[in-house]
């Protein structure tokens, strides 16, 4: 009975065309692979991650990061983080500082708001 079940399963896998590997650790499912599978990512995610890694590294360099630093920074990102960044590195929030174009009356209004503590616009950051 057990043999039949195993054989059936084995055949099923072959039909699915997923192939078999015979490395020493073959068969053991790592925690990261398991989490990726739960997220319905799987093998496709591996391929995308490799592409994203290259893509993000190029973009970091284009945005002024030293190429040596860029390699280490990309290596530190997880696959899902890479996927988040890859397509939108130019639009994601980048905490730092933004130039405020304030003139005339707008400036005065903001100043008042600041003095009353309603806003934090003129706080030095």
């Amino acid at each position, binding site marked *: 009975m057990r043999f039949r079940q195993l054989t059936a399963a084995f055949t099923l896998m072959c039909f699915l065309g*997923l192939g078999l590997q015979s490395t020493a650790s073959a068969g053991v499912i790592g925690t990261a692979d398991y989490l990726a599978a739960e997220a319905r990512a799987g093998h496709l995610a591996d391929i995308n991650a490799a592409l994203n890694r290259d893509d993000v590294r190029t973009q970091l360099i284009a945005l002024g990061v030293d190429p040596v630093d860029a390699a280490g920074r990309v290596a*530190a990102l997880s696959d899902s983080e890479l996927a988040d960044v890859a397509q939108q590195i130019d639009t994601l929030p980048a905490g730092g500082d933004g130039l405020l174009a304030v003139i005339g009356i707008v400036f005065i209004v903001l100043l008042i708001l600041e003095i009353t503590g309603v806003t934090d616009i003129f706080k030095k950051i």
Partner: protein
Amino acid sequence: MPDWPKWLLLLIAVAISACTAPWRTLAEDPRYELTTVPFFPQTIHQCGPAALATVLGATGIAVEPEALAPEVYLPGRRGSLQVEMLATARRHGRLAYVIEPRIETLLAEISAGNPVLVLQDLGALGIRRWHYAAVVGFDPVSDVLVLRSGKDRRHVVRRERFLRTWQASDNWGVVVSRADTPPATAAASGYVPTLLAAEPYLPAADIDAAYTMMLARWPADPLVRFAAGNHAYGSGHLAEAINDYRTLLKVDPVHIAGLNNLANALLDSGCAVDALAKPGVQKSWLILLPLATAVADTLDKALAATTSVSATEGTGDSVCTAE
């Protein structure tokens, strides 16, 4: 009342009231505030490195913002990305856990002694102005929060004001912690992937301690058991791994990856395996098809082993049978 602009009303209000906001000068109070959290005044655009150095410093990692800039600052954006803030904490041997996006959770972390790194939008009139800061205190009497922010060691801000600036980032808050001392509000489902991402940068002893801690804190959590089993397996502790997988399967009898890895650990221990012949397993295959290759490998190994083991009627090793 005519449709007066709000600012005009405010102007009048200011004229007839005191001009100072009393909460701005709130005295430092160790009851509500993590007074020992270090402070690094930021230089231009560099609030990311400064805020990160602050929360890293609180966990005993002494690093200057200038040293973090090459790892986290993005010159072309004149700022730092959220994912790189997380990644940089990992590179310094710490875990960066994104907390549940609620003010109650943030305050619970402060109470537990953990400063919270936050992303705010300090802009106005539709102009975005993203800014990182570290929340270090909350005074329930004055209803204000205290932040290490920009050039202010103690920036005091009313709670409602803070909430407005925080909301723009979908209440993004991060607790940076040692691997074995998770945030007070951490959930197993979030902590396991957080630890996993940091493992390449952690000393082996820290990783071991983290799994020991997780098993103590979430003893019945399937994901923790699975991850701990894998860690034990990877470290060569087969009996420990088998025990973890079995505990997991008591909670979730058709955990396909757990069954699969238990089968592997048993095979490696020289045991015959029927772990994958359970009812319900076939259904799980369909749910987790990406894992099918690994399961097929295991079945292959099990088939080969069944032949040899049945010839010797088992090995008699006690690890083979669940108690």
